[in-house]
């Protein structure tokens, strides 16, 4: 049984042949590749979902600023705004942002998070799934399967491109996370594997070019807000997929484009702190002392 795939095309062929979802193929492939029993793989992923919920909960409680002074307390502000009389576009939209922000605020205060796929992008997928838990009353097991959908799409990105801001810019981090989350939302809410892949393409193509220029080198500005905003972006892309929209540029080509843009992106904009927001006069005030 060959369950290996490295492109969305190959993945969709497997899904069609076996009449399985992306999540199911990904779980089966993991079992095949690692020889770990399926139940153990599933349990580990379910534990990760539990940690993701904990990090949202902890982040929403943060009131004091982080040690750099660049973040802290905004998830709470968003949560309160969501509970106000008429938040723009409705409470769930603001809450979804709050959850993404919460994870990153927790991360910035040396809290525990699950890199999905990186720490700097660890808020996007949890925010989407936790939001779905509230609106669609999905079970923990269903949300765990959604994490396998996300991982299946992440596998395609990782096979061709990369996830690190230092190599590919923020498009490789938050772009990948949003791409993975969009597909996860689609499958978790009953969409087909093909729709999930379309949603992933829409999410990623609209993050292309995002640079990694964090102020002071801290994973805070713009990362904290960005995780909240791109969680919502994932819902936008998922809606396009569920609506039956087709991307003229398929996911596999979007991933290649992301890799190409990452390679051409100047070093100054790839986590070096030498350009963009980090090198503005206000940004420079937050420069930490280098270790050496």
């Amino acid at each position, binding site marked *: 049984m060959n369950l290996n795939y490295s492109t969305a095309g190959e993945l969709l062929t497997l899904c069609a042949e076996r009449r399985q979802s992306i999540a199911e193929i990904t779980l089966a492939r993991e079992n095949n590749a690692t020889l770990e029993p399926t139940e153990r793989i599933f349990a580990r992923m379910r534990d990760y979902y539990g940690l993701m919920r904990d990090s949202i909960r902890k982040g929403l409680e943060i009131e004091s600023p982080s040690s750099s002074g660049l973040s802290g307390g905004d998830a709470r502000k968003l949560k309160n705004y969501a509970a106000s009389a008429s938040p723009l576009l409705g409470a769930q939209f603001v809450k979804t942002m709050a959850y993404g922000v919460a994870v990153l605020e927790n991360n910035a205060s*040396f809290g525990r998070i699950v*890199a999905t796929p990186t720490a700097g992008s660890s808020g996007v997928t949890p925010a989407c799934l936790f939001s779905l838990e509230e609106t669609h009353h999905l079970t923990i097991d269903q949300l765990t399967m959604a994490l396998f959908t996300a991982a299946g799409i992440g596998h395609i990105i990782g096979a061709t491109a990369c*996830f690190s801001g230092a190599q590919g810019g923020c498009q490789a981090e938050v772009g990948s996370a949003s791409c993975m989350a969009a597909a996860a939302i689609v499958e978790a809410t009953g969409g087909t594997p093909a729709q999930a892949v379309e949603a992933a393409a829409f999410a990623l193509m609209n993050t292309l070019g995002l640079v990694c220029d964090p102020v002071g080198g801290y994973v805070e500005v713009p990362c904290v807000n960005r995780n909240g905003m791109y969680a919502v972006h994932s819902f936008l892309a998922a809606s396009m997929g569920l609506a039956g929209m087709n991307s003229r540029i398929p996911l596999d080509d979007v991933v290649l484009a992301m890799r190409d843009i990452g390679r051409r992106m100047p070093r100054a904009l790839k986590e070096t702190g030498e350009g963009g927001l980090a090198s503005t006069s206000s940004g420079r005030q937050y420069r*930490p002392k280098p270790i050496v």
Partner: protein
Amino acid sequence: MDSVFEIIGPAMIGPSSSHTAGAVRIGLMGRALLNAPPAQAKIGLHGSFASTGAGHATDRGLVAGLLGFAPDDERVKDSLQLAPDAGLSVQFFKTDLGEQAHPNSARLDLVASGGGVHNLTASSIGGGNIEVIGIDEFPVSITGMLDALIMHHVDQAGFLAKVTAVLACVAINIATIRTSRHHRGENALTVIETDTPAPACAREVLQSITGVQYLRAIPRLP
């Protein structure tokens, strides 16, 4: 990427998967290489590890790993304070590992509490994943996603045949195997990645092969 947990995971203490969690894992590799608690660490930071490492707690991460903490251990943030109590003295310096080196890389020159001296060069390649690229001046490629055996030995005919025979006897499947040497007949380093850890009995036999200077079992990373 072999496992979904390279994409989702690790569970870790923030703030950065490549600069913090990856750094912890590099430290853990260093500790495993020593096979004893470290007493001294001279840590050369390359590229982004040196320039933005403070904000990302790269220094705390590397030291946490040397102290044996997992990437999701709450003590990661306090590792620099905890190191002296654990008998570890640490010194950081800036280093240049060359154009080809990944921007998030470090070289660790380590002395064990028992006196063993080793060095390790590794890169944090994204998402908390790492690659050890050098051990004791030999080029290697170890990701920590599998169990690994490291053997420092004299380059001689039949060495790998003996090693693989021992592992075959205990039904350990070899995923990768690589030997590197500087000159024929001199010292060589062999790294064997296996799907399951080699049992102690097999390690004992491997250790006793003529010409083996040291053998280390490097468990897969948390």
